[in-house]
């Protein structure tokens, strides 16, 4: 028998993680940013649970997403019969005003997530982040416990041996579950192509520009590219040296911007 190929292996591991989360952490919800990663993850949720999505899928909505993103959401909710919930994020005036401007926009999502968890009492939140996206995320665990205020203490993370994860958190606290942590940007696109998973058309180049990473329309910028198909995106990524989140203003405003966002609870 031939062994699993590389994408099969990544997928099987993600499904294993999702099933562990569903068996051991309750109540549970998943964040869906409607970008390529969490949409591919949603596809694997359906695989893990045989066509069903057995927990709520939440969009942290700042009202500032691209129009194409909202349209894509509505289409997929109907096609995949998703148990979707929209969580309106609090206004920017309520977040830490010492953060740089773009990071302040992003911090609205942290506040929205905190409100959601407090209201619904979720003990587990599934997120589609990856380690290769960003140097701080590279230090994440697959099951990452958060304090009651949602904050992350990266200096005292629990051991994560083989596939034994930290499920138990004190009351009021929660665990972030990251089933895509071991995937790369290239893996996601190769998998999206292979599985024919739908995606927001903004990723494809139009008039020499495309979005490589999707955030709020006011703090996300397209990159120069002629990749107008998934095949071309993959070819482009195979040779690029530019970081994926180059178009995300919040990451690079100051040296510690992303670290500050994440330790206070950003995704």
């Amino acid at each position, binding site marked *: 028998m031939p062994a699993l190929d590389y994408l099969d292996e990544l997928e099987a591991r993600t499904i294993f993680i999702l099933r562990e989360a569903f068996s051991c952490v309750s109540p549970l919800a998943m964040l869906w940013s409607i970008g390529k990663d969490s949409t591919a993850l949603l596809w694997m949720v359906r695989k893990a649970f045989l066509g069903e999505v057995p927990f709520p899928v939440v969009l942290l909505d700042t009202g500032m997403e691209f129009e194409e993103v909202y349209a894509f959401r509505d289409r997929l909710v109907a096609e995949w019969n998703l148990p979707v919930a929209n969580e309106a994020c609090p206004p920017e005036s309520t977040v830490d005003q010492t953060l740089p401007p773009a990071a302040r926009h992003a911090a609205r999502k942290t506040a929205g997530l905190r409100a959601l968890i407090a209201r619904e009492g979720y003990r587990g939140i599934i997120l589609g982040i990856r380690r290769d996206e960003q140097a701080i995320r590279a*230090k994440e665990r697959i099951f990452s416990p958060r304090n009651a205020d949602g904050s992350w203490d990266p200096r005292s993370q629990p051991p994560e*041996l083989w596939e034994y994860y930290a499920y138990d958190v004190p009351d009021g606290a929660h665990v972030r579950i990251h089933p895509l942590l071991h995937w790369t940007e290239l893996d996601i696109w190769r998998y999206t192509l292979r599985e024919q998973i739908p995606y927001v058309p903004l990723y494809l180049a139009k008039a020499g520009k495309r979005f490589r990473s999707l955030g709020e329309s006011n703090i996300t910028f397209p990159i120069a590219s002629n990749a107008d198909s998934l095949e071309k995106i993959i070819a482009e990524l195979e040779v690029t040296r530019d970081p994926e989140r180059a178009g995300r203003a919040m990451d690079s405003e100051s040296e*510690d911007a992303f670290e500050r966002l994440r330790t206070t609870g950003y995704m």
Partner: protein
Amino acid sequence: MKNVRIVMVGDVDAGKSTILGRLLVDLGLVTPAKLEELETSSSKRGVPIEYSFLLDAFQVERDQAITLDLTRIWVRTPDAEFVFVDAPGHRELIRNLLSGASEVDAAVMVVAADEGITLQTRRQALFLRWFGFANVLVAINKLDLAEDPRAAYNARAAEVTAFLDQLGMHPRAIVPVAARSGDGIVRPGPLTMWWTGPTLLDALGTLERAAVRTDGPLRFVVQDVYRRDGKRLIAGRVESGTLERGEFLTFWPLQTGARVLTIHQWPREVERAVAGSSVALELDARVFVDRGAVGSRATDAPELGHAAQTTVVWLGADPVRAGEALRMRLGTREIPVTLQKIEEAIDPDTLEPRETQELRSGDVGVVSLVARELIAADTHLAESSVGRFVLLRAGTIVAGGRIDAVVGHARGEGATNVVAMTSSVERRERTARNGHAGGVFWLTGLPSSGKSTVAMAVQRMLFERGRQVYVLDGDTLRTSLNVDLGFSDDDRSENVRRTAAVAGVFADAGFIVICALISPFAADRELARSAYPNAFHEIYVSCDLVTAEGRDVKGHYGRARRGELPHFTGVSSPYEVPQQPELLVDTASHRIEESASLLLEYIESHVRSR
């Protein structure tokens, strides 16, 4: 293109992050903008360009020039994709190294030429051996600090070879490098001109991804049971071997078995699933299977026992001593265990075993564990998750371990927890200790309907799962407690009342009590319920009279038909069929094993403590 995962080990200042930073820069994977940012961060802290900053993303890491937690770096060459896991060398952060090393194919050990093998390096090498690493590369770094790089390399290489030899480890290559200037990393440099062997990059190119064996013994680890369209689907992963549709699977440790009807890999059904696949199985019989079970072929099974000899790495902040009760996660099962004895610890200085009373954080030791339940484990199957485990203390992972041997089918002494049976113990405390709640499971049905047979089978299974369980059998009680009672309607009622009262006491004491009594009258059964109303379950063991009479285990039906038994239920006395039993077990159309599985599943779902 191959994809290989590699962990970096070495002492805190050996230069692991610098080697990776240099690899990225010299392979041209860092943009000019990023290099500029690096120069800015470096000069801000008054240091020459610091390549490790490419990895060390936290402010405090850059300020103190150390790596705090695991990070991952992706490196793409024309022939391969590498994922490097960079683990910090601090003793107190050993959990990070272990976390990193548990998911990779190979290790690169970095030894600084000016320091040689430190205690920290010895300790880390012990972990690598403990993990069973076959692929280890060594980089002798900081040759730029040596007066004679070649002599420095030769001396350190001899030292490393001798040391690893003691551990039974054989590095694939020992390469000379100077990470700060880049010599020997991607290409040779002035400091390594004398070297005729591979650069670090060349040596990395010889590593392969660890393949899981699709031809090994079959292991299917159960994660959960889902219900879809009235079907039960056993969700889990094939960890070793290949699972074929149609074959017979035995699930351990309960040894229930059934044939695989379909293998679901939504949206498809497949004929087979190889090692690594996450699938869901539909079985041809409704046998008891739940999270934690391990499926195998009957002939190629994991080992069974109540105790295990193990090698562990202790990670807990506080030390551990013999006698401590912990929880073990083995595959997808969580089992209460007691650490019975610390046989020895390995001294990282001498690599010799030494006697000890306790294991401290970072110690590797050989310990025996005794379980309260039957465990199924693998001792020589690297890819099986029931060959390795973690220990938990108060819900936190405090050790990683490998099963070296499974011992003793009999229950060990160390697992016995004695509970003082006084009113000063609350029910919830008993539940917490037992890991399950008490309850009364009242089996009612015609004579020879199978009540006692099912009750005994389920008692055995529950006992093997570490549950406190007892069967109160109607016939048996009539020889002791109820010896003064006959079969008149009044005596039958009193029989039920007394049995229910005893059952209630047992249940209150935390036991799962299975009562097997004909109890023909609905009113009596309602009375029985009132003896333990918060957890009483009426279970109708259903069997038509013809079938029951055909069995006539005790010859009673024959005697009743001949008029010798005047009040025999079903023949000369009525049986009131339960109108709304909590569970119906049909023994006429199901095998005993299936009926027992159904009841077991029902009981387990109703005594669960969380």
